[in-house]
C-alpha cells in the first residue's frame, strides 16, 4: 500500500518536474546545459540524505544490536550509491561543455569521488563477511565514519578555491523548478528505499530459515 502511494506520488511529481525543467524554467546565461542542474543537485542532496539514514541506522544498530537497523542502513546505502553514481556522471557531462574537460581534481569533485569510494568499500566489506552480526558491526562502523565525508563535500566550496558553481540569487522560476525536482527525487528515494528494505528483510528471513533447515 505504502509502495503504491509512493509510486503514484513519484510518477506525478516526475511529470510535473519534467514540465518545469524543460518548459517552465527560463534559460540562463549557461544555455541549455544548465538544465542538467535541475537533476544533478537533487541527485546529490538525496544521496546525502540516504547516507544520513545510513549514519543514523548504523548508530542505532551499534546501540540496540537489532538486525533490522542493519537492513535499514544497507538498503539506504545501496540507493545512496546509485544516486551518487548518477550525480557524479551528470556532473561530468555538465563539466565538458562548461569547463572543457570531463573531470578535474577540484575539491568538490574529489571529495564526492571519495564519498562514492567509501560506499563502494562498504559493500565490498559486506560481501566478504558471511556472519550476520559481524557484517552488521563492521558496516555500521564504516557507515558512521563514512558519513564524515558528506559535510566535507558540502563545505568544500567555502573552504577552498573551486571551479564548482555556488547556488546564489536565482530567478523565482528557477528556485521553484529546483524545489519540485528535489521533492520528486525525495519521493523516488523513499520508493526505492522501501522496495529495497522490504526485499532485504525477506532475504534475511530466508537466509535464517535456510541456515535452520541445513542444521
Amino acid at each position: 500500500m505504502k509502495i503504491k502511494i509512493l509510486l503514484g506520488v513519484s510518477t506525478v511529481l516526475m511529470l510535473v518536474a519534467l514540465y518545469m525543467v524543460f518548459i517552465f524554467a527560463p534559460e540562463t546565461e549557461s544555455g541549455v546545459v544548465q538544465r542538467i542542474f535541475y537533476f544533478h543537485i537533487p541527485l546529490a542532496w538525496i544521496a546525502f540524505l540516504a547516507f544520513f539514514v545510513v549514519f543514523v541506522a548504523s548508530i542505532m544498530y551499534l546501540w540496540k544490536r537489532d538486525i533490522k537497523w542493519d537492513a535499514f542502513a544497507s538498503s539506504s546505502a545501496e540507493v545512496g550509491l546509485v544516486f551518487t553514481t548518477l550525480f557524479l556522471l551528470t556532473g561530468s557531462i555538465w563539466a565538458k561543455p562548461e569547463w572543457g574537460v570531463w573531470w578535474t581534481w577540484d575539491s568538490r569533485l574529489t571529495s564526492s569521488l571519495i564519498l562514492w569510494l567509501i560506499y563502494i568499500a562498504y559493500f565490498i566489506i559486506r560481501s566478504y563477511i558471511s556472519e550476520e552480526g559481524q557484517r552488521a558491526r563492521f558496516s555500521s562502523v564504516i557507515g558512521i565514519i563514512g558519513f564524515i565525508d558528506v559535510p566535507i563535500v558540502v563545505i568544500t566550496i567555502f573552504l577552498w578555491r573551486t571551479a564548482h558553481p555556488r547556488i546564489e540569487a536565482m530567478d523565482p522560476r528557477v528556485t521553484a523548478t529546483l524545489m519540485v525536482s528535489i521533492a520528486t527525487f525525495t519521493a523516488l528515494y523513499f520508493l526505492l528505499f522501501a522496495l529495497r528494505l522490504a526485499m532485504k528483510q525477506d532475504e534475511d528471513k530466508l537466509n535464517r530459515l535456510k541456515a535452520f533447515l541445513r542444521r
Partner: protein
Amino acid sequence: MDNLGYLFAAFAVIWAGLFTYILVLTQKQRQLRRDIDWLKETLKKSE
C-alpha cells in the same frame, strides 16, 4: 557534440541508471521467489 547533445546524454544516463537499478531489484526479487519455492518444497518433503 552540441550543448543539446550533452543535455540529452545527462538525462539518458539518469534514466538508464534508474532503470538498471530497478532491473537489478527485479532480478533479486525473482531469486527470492525461487528461494521461497525451494524452501516450501524442502518443508513439504520433511513433513
